[in-house]
């Protein structure tokens, strides 16, 4: 069997996609090889298989995975005519399966998951295909699924064009877009910025109604300014009230569990570091652990804040 129909190649590809996601399914790959050798007919199986792939993808990718998946599928669909000319030998089937086709998907804000799924994109290099598929290397991370990473590491065969390292983000060039390095860099940068703007949209109230970067930036600027003015106003109020504070403060400070000593310039130590913590846990109810009157009061007040966006933002790099 020295000829593989395009359909089966597509299915190979999509199967290897799922293989990259689920390292547990190695046993199925051997089953798949057997199926191939039994002269499998393509399209129906492919469709079936694509349906199979979707839920796996989605549960890992989160809410934005569906879009990405559609893009991949359309890309696979686009390639059908090109694949007519593609005739790998039988021994390359193994190569195809071990070479996972991959791309890296960064999750946009997701309150439940903040995983990065790393798949590596490889194809047999052909003249036409190289121009359509370029990879731009930016910094990447893959904190979950380390076994999966190992899997794709194993399958890391080199193409003639690029050597993919693990610490890069791959940006896929879409059809009809420029593929030189500079515009890819530009595009990646712009995508990052727009992602962050979307996160900011969640945090700043009233941003949803305005569309476009400029309007949103305006809103954000106004909001930050109003917050700073509020702080200033409150601190002024506090300075007027300060002599009266003394009585209350004496009470409160005696009730406080661990009181910080003066002077204020002493550096405090963090008891909970959010630096570089990529895990997010969903914020449920805020627990009231202290019995201080004003502490409880302030906790009641900020229970009304949207705490989900807080946490997701605190854990963003």
């Amino acid at each position: 069997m020295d000829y593989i129909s395009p359909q089966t190649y597509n299915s190979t590809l999509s199967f290897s996609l799922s293989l990259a996601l689920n390292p547990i399914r190695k046993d199925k790959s051997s089953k798949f090889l057997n199926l191939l050798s039994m002269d499998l007919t393509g399209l129906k199986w492919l469709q079936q298989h694509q349906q199979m792939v979707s839920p796996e993808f989605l549960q890992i990718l989160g809410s934005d995975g569906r879009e990405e998946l559609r893009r991949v599928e359309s890309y696979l669909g686009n390639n059908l005519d090109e694949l007519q000319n593609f005739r790998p030998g039988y021994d390359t089937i193994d190569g195809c399966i071990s070479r996972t086709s991959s791309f890296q998907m960064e999750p946009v804000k997701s309150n439940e998951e903040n995983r990065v799924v790393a798949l590596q994109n490889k194809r047999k290099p052909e003249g036409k295909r190289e121009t359509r598929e370029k990879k731009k290397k930016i910094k990447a991370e893959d904190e979950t699924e380390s076994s999966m990473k190992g899997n794709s590491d194993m399958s890391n065969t080199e193409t003639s064009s690029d050597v993919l390292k693990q610490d890069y983000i791959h940006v896929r060039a879409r059809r009809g877009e420029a593929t030189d390095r500079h515009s890819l860099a530009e595009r990646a940068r712009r995508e990052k910025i727009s992602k962050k703007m979307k996160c900011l949209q969640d945090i700043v109230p009233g941003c949803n109604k305005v569309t476009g970067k400029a309007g949103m930036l305006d809103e954000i600027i106004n909001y930050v300014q109003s917050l700073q003015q509020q702080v200033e106003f409150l601190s002024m109020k506090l300075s007027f009230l300060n002599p009266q504070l003394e009585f209350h403060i004496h009470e409160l400070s005696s009730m406080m569990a661990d009181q910080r000593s003066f002077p204020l310039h002493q550096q405090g130590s963090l008891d909970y570091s959010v630096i570089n913590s990529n895990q997010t846990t969903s914020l449920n109810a805020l627990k009231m652990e202290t019995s201080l009157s004003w502490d409880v009061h302030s906790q009641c007040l900020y229970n009304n804040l949207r705490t989900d966006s807080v946490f997701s933002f605190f854990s963003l790099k």
Partner: protein
Amino acid sequence: MERQIINKKKRVFSVEPNKIPPSEVFTRKYTRLLVPALKKLNMNKNSSQANQLTVKHEVDMALALSAQEFAWSRFLLQKLSSSNNPTTTTSSSSNGIRIQKRSGKEGGDEDGEIEEKLRELQKLLPGGEEMNVEEMLGEIGNYIKCLELQTIALKSIVEDTT
């Protein structure tokens, strides 16, 4: 049996620090920093000369110290420690006017407008000018959250005394 009970008791006491929500951590730190500082201010200064500025200074200092995991807090600390006459973090009126002017302009150079606004935003954030745009956008988010929490804490302190 006893061993199991003992083990269970041991397990109960293990607290996982990861589960404390950061907003709570921040607020608690902030209030614990600010209140003693205010008390100290009360005791030391009998006259109300430059009282506003020092209170503002303490407020900013408490903010910077309770949010040390963020880049902007470092810059804020620098600003506070370097200047004896503390600069206010808001220059409210001038910025407000400028934004109104810009909205009246023709939207000819859209990219340039966006650039200007980004620069404006950078000025608002302490240390924003030293960061690049991507970083700054990320830092602005948690700066906003910390400001919100700070206003809540201040409100509750003020309300409690009135």
